[in-house]
């Protein structure tokens, strides 16, 4: 090595230089424009091209959108008002919005799904925002039963007895836990099953004859439009997450039997198109179920959609689990936390946080996939748009219906996506 010693003269700084404001070209709108839109010839060309495309699109759609007819009884009437000029005929929405939202739900009962929707938002709030009082979660827990009764009606004692099954499980768990942890788990599973199988029926029948209260029954085939999308979507979403977590844990389990059941389930479901499962739900399930059971079609679809989403969810969560360093498991073990506590307090919060984008992807996918039920004869919004077109009044109208349906779906999915970004920001605790 032939490095010449550079420091021939000792140098010592005794006053430190003060900080200075940047030159004027380093701030403001001009700088932003130059840096972001016109930083080089390629960037400038792309900027101009983009502006052209945007202008062209606006010029094409703008007049059509701006010249909108809101009041007309039929497409023909619309065209007469427009008199040859381009214009949108959103009168169809004005005329048929209730069908797009509720399907053929009896119109005097529209308040029921509407109230169920408002209550849905209210009971989601404490689940989604942890700064609300935790006691509100009891309201959320009661929601499924309330919503069921609001939507389908019938005897009020049916949802009550179903809910009592869960209460029975909880009570049994609390009492059995004093004796033994394993016994508590068994009690928590067996008590509700026993209740539903043997006691719920007489309880239900007895009370219904003594106190026959409840809303008027509405059959499932009257359901349609966004009502059906939301019923299937929301139930599917809220059931597929816990099921997915269990499947992911099962897949990682040391117990060979549990593990293989989970792997086979996940791989089977992922290997089969959803539409096949839906056809299975509508046609084949009848062969497998004991004769005489009439199993509601919406319920069957919910089961299939849930299983489908759960398989994907399991894989998403497995990715999150795999991303956790081994040290987290070891630290939890070393502190004496058992498997379930470690999962609940240490592993899952982190794995789920890592998986949020994937989980939300699955949720959004599930929600949009509810439109596939049109193929098994359920009247979701797409199905209803066909039904509306079948009416001679609105024969030939496409864009306006699809824009409306698309806008509503977008609203929901965008909401989910925004919420997930909020959640990710809120949970970001590392490397701040």
């Amino acid at each position: 090595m032939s490095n010449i010693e550079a420091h021939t003269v000792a140098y010592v700084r005794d006053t430190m230089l003060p900080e200075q404001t940047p030159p004027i070209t380093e701030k403001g709108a001009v700088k932003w424009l130059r840096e972001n839109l016109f930083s080089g010839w390629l960037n400038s060309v792309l900027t101009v091209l983009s502006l052209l495309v945007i202008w062209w699109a606006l010029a094409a759609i703008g007049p059509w959108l701006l010249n909108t007819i809101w009041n007309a009884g039929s497409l023909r009437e619309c065209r007469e008002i427009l008199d040859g000029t381009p214009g949108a005929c959103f009168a169809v929405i004005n005329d048929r919005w209730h069908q797009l939202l509720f399907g053929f739900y009896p119109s005097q009962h529209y308040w029921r799904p509407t109230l169920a929707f408002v209550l849905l938002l209210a009971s989601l709030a404490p689940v989604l925002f942890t700064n609300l009082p935790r006691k509100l979660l009891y309201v959320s827990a009661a929601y499924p039963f309330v919503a069921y009764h609001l939507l389908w009606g019938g005897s009020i004692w049916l949802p009550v007895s179903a809910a009592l099954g869960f209460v029975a499980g909880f009570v049994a768990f609390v009492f059995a836990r004093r004796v033994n942890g394993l016994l508590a788990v068994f009690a928590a599973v067996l008590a509700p099953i026993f209740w539903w199988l043997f006691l719920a029926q007489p309880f239900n029948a007895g009370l219904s004859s003594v106190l026959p209260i409840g809303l008027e029954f509405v059959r499932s085939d009257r359901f349609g439009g966004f009502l059906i999308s939301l019923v299937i979507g929301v139930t599917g979403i809220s059931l597929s997450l816990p099921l997915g977590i269990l499947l992911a844990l099962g897949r990682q389990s040391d117990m060979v039997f549990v593990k293989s059941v989970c792997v086979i389930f996940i791989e089977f479901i992922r290997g089969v198109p959803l539409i096949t499962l839906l056809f299975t739900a509508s046609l084949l399930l009848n062969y497998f179920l004991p004769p005489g059971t009439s199993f509601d079609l919406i319920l069957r679809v919910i089961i299939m959609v849930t299983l489908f989403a759960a398989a994907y969810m399991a894989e998403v969560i497995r990715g999150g689990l795999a991303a956790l360093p081994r040290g987290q498991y070891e630290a939890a073990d070393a502190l004496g936390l058992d498997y379930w506590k470690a999962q609940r307090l240490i592993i899952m919060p982190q794995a789920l946080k890592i998986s949020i984008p994937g989980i939300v992807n699955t949720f959004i996918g599930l929600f949009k996939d509810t439109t596939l039920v049109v193929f098994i004869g359920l009247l979701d919004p797409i199905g209803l748009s066909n039904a509306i077109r079948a009416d001679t009044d609105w024969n030939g109208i496409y864009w306006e219906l699809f824009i409306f349906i698309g806008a509503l779906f977008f609203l929901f999915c965008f909401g989910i996506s925004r919420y997930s970004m909020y959640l990710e920001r809120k949970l970001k605790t590392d490397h701040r």
Partner: protein
Amino acid sequence: MSEPVVEMPVDRKIDISQMKVSDEIAIQITGMNKWFGSFHVLRDIDMTVNRGERIVICGPSGSGKSTLIRCINRLEEHQAGQIIVDGTELTSDLKNIDKVRSEVGMVFQHFNLFPHLTILENCTLAPIWVRKTPKKEAEEIAMHFLEKVKIPEQALKYPGQLSGGQQQRVAIARSLCMRPRIMLFDEPTSALDPEMIKEVLDTMIQLAEEGMTMICVTHEMGFAQAVANRVIFMDQGQIVEQNRPTEFFKNPKSERTKLFLSQILGH
């Protein structure tokens, strides 16, 4: 290997290495063997640790030091022999394992704090969920130990906001909150920058002064000399030599120990 970072102040009030050790046995390992697949990691380990003893384990990388102390709280399972911790034998019985784990604290090379919980929550989690301590009391205990490791002001921050040395001290406090009777350290300073090593070692010295039973895997020979009452040298899954630190460093008996010491002390 760098020079030992801590030089022990001569004027310490207590000379720890001279502290009395009780006759009560804390850990008894007899004829223990462990394999990873067909690889024989630990061979015929016999080792007795008395209550209040401070043991330093050293040896070349891959010699099985981590595996040995991880067997003591059953993070690894041994296949032959016997490990008795505080009178409880480690078998596949989950009850015993839980009992031992709640008696034995462990500090890892990479801290392994829970990044999604605050420092305080890291420290209160196990007392609340394992020991069933009421939350308020658990927080008081946690603050007590955080003060002891000299970072009470960080209690509401997240681990990612702390320096490595601070994180390792939190990890020590987290273990102490479970009131363990034995502490295991697996190279607690190896992942730290030199200027942070001292603060962690100081915390460990303080623990030693209070009479904690400690087993430390470490290459900080200054620490070993000042604190340990026994140094164990391991190579290829076996205990090659053990002795009081003064003799161990001055007069290593086996050739391997001599070679290792000459490498680690950088001569």
